[in-house]
């Protein structure tokens, strides 16, 4: 009982009105978006849709008004996020900037960086990607080799970033790289705000196992960055990156990735499923409802300024298990041969879910890394 607390989630005032407003908006905007597209969840990219969300004030909604935000609570933002995900809205374009790049800029950015970028992010017009992983640095983030070296008027970057989601459709990357000695695993790193149109940067798409191209290799060859590109404090990169991760790990995107498949499963089972099917549905419902409660609890902790890194890791670990179970259980209940792009909606949705499920326990920290964090939180390390 002493290890972790999940205080009851708070129901923010006006929550029901906000939820109704978002639902109404999504019902209109997504009316013609088929389930085979909705299943892409937060991997679905649509810059026009992101711009519309920005116009509604639903990007950067907790940020100060002077930077384009709406000064809403983290719990109101949570409502918008979960409604978007449950509906299968294409949110990938702005997702990273809204979730972590923007908050990082708010916390660590210079006044100029904030004024220049935050209002554009909030308007849904400026998209970000995360430059953390490298060919030899996946889970072992401290092993990054990409390096920024000081020049007369700024920095010069050399190295390769990998698995950079939507780098080819982003305006900026938050680059995590080495600026100090290699002996100092954590201390010699910094973060940079990289304009991806600068020379010396090559973005090559990498197809995932389904053939889709959403992630990339980004190669830096003597890429010149202005001095103003440094984000936060030189040498403080590790701490800044760790601070981002609680935002990255506890949100509703960590248990709703295959929610659209569950919706289609219910459609396929009809109004009078067998007892076995009812028990399977109910089991999944119990998992999702409890995860949602825990995840909202973490949102409340974040709003209070706590650092619920352990709770966030617990939510993400449990969430990935359920997201991956949904296609496995669906195939026990509905006899179908999954096929990506099929005209049969269930077949197509199931196909997409199966082909993407491996990523759920890799992205944002592998299952093994998360359990290491949990073990540390339990006092085992």
């Amino acid at each position, binding site marked *: 009982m002493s290890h972790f607390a999940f205080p009851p989630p708070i129901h923010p005032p006006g929550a029901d009105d906000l939820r109704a407003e978002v639902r109404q908006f999504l019902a209109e905007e997504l009316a013609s978006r088929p389930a085979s597209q909705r299943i892409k969840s937060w991997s679905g990219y649509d810059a026009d849709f992101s711009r519309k969300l920005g116009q509604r004030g639903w990007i950067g909604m907790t940020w100060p008004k002077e930077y384009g935000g709406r000064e809403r609570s983290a719990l109101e933002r949570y409502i918008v996020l979960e409604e978007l995900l*449950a509906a299968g809205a294409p949110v990938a374009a702005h997702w990273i900037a809204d979730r972590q790049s923007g908050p990082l800029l708010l916390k660590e950015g210079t006044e100029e960086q904030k004024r220049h970028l935050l209002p554009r992010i909030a308007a849904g017009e400026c998209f970000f990607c995360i430059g953390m992983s490298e060919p030899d640095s996946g889970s072992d983030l401290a092993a990054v080799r990409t390096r920024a070296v000081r020049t007369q008027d700024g920095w010069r970057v050399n190295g390769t970033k990998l698995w950079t989601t939507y780098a080819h459709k982003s305006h900026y990357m938050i680059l995590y790289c080495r600026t100090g000695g290699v002996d100092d695993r954590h201390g010699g790193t910094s973060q940079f705000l990289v304009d991806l149109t600068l020379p010396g940067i090559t973005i090559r798409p990498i197809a995932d196992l389904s053939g889709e191209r959403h992630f990339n290799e980004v190669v830096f060859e003597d890429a010149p960055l202005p001095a103003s590109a440094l984000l936060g404090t030189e040498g403080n990169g590790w701490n800044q990156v760790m601070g981002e991760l609680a935002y990255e790990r506890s949100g509703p995107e960590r248990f709703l990735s295959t929610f659209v498949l569950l919706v289609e499963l219910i459609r396929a089972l009809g109004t009078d499923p067998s007892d076995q099917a009812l028990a399977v549905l*109910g*089991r999944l*419902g119990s998992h999702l409802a*409890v995860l949602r409660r825990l995840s909202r609890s973490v949102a409340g902790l974040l709003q209070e300024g706590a650092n619920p890194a352990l*709770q966030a890791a617990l939510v993400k*670990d449990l969430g990935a298990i359920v997201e991956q179970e949904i296609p496995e259980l669906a195939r026990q209940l509905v006899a179908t041969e999954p096929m990506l792009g099929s005209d049969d909606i269930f077949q197509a949705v199931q196909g997409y879910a199966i082909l993407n499920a491996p990523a759920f326990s890799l992205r944002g920290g592998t299952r093994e890394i998360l359990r290491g964090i949990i073990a540390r939180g339990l006092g*085992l*390390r």
Partner: protein
Amino acid sequence: MNETSEIVRDMSARLFADLATPARLYEAEAGVWDQPAWDRVQMMGLPLALVPEEAGGVGLEAADAAGLVASAATTALPVPLAETMLANRLLADAGLPLAEGPATLAPARPGDRFTLERRGAGWHLHGGAERVPWASIAGDIVIVAEAEGQVLAARVARSDVTPLPGRNLALEPRDRLEVDLELPGDAVAPLPAGITICHPLALGAAFRTAALAGAAARVLDMTVAYANERSQFGRPIGKFQAVQQSLALMAGQVAATKGAADLAAGYLDAYSQPGGADPLPVAIGKARAGEAAGMIAAIAHQVHGAIGFTHEHALHFLTKRLWSWRDEFGNDAHWQRLIGRRMAAAGPEGLWPLLTTL
């Protein structure tokens, strides 16, 4: 949680820890009723925790009362605290006199039913129930039944029925009731409108969920402590990644029981409100915690190794309760089917709105 409930919580936690000594737990397993422990629990007013102050109770909020049940469960205290709290609440809801000692409620299984029929100025109560917790110890048994389109509570003295003793895996009394009884008119009264016949099952399941969460949290604490103190190959076994991964998995399941218990406790606050007697939060909580309980017990025993498999080590007091409580007041499948029916009825478009009502 206000200051009073914090004081109650802290004092109770100390009391439970004092009372649930290994010696007394072994005696309870041997069938000895721990009257002195019950007297101390009763002296603190805990059996009246859920009864509103105006009805002579303590009037704790449901979450705080569920916290007491969880707290008692961390020690495996062998007394019917949860059952008596619920029985008293049912009595208060029906405007019947509260129980003076340990009490329980029935039915405690989904299929069991009693019938009530008016006989002159009184009632005829008839029916049977299996696995009624602590019925052979309780002074009063609150039996819920339907009659004349209403859901009613009947206050039955145990001395008027003869429970047939049984036990669960943790050797707590789980007794069979056969009732064929004439009751005076003032021993039966209707429960508030909106309450359904599955109410006693939902109440019991809500508190079993709290108890599962309490026992689960304690089992995690014990297992982490053991992993840090037991050395093999020259280092504590908790330093091995394989063991750490298991404990992390267990911590996730323990977190889920906590979320489950909080959801389920919501029913206790809500059911007396209009439309509030929806058992869905209880169904979700009990099903989820019940599923977690088995994984938690399995990992705890795996990490504890052979010593945890002995009768001498205290781990089994809690793991036997996890294995018992998960199947009481409706097992996982019972509640899962209820949730599943609601999901199917909501349909593809109604599923998300259903989940966001919780």
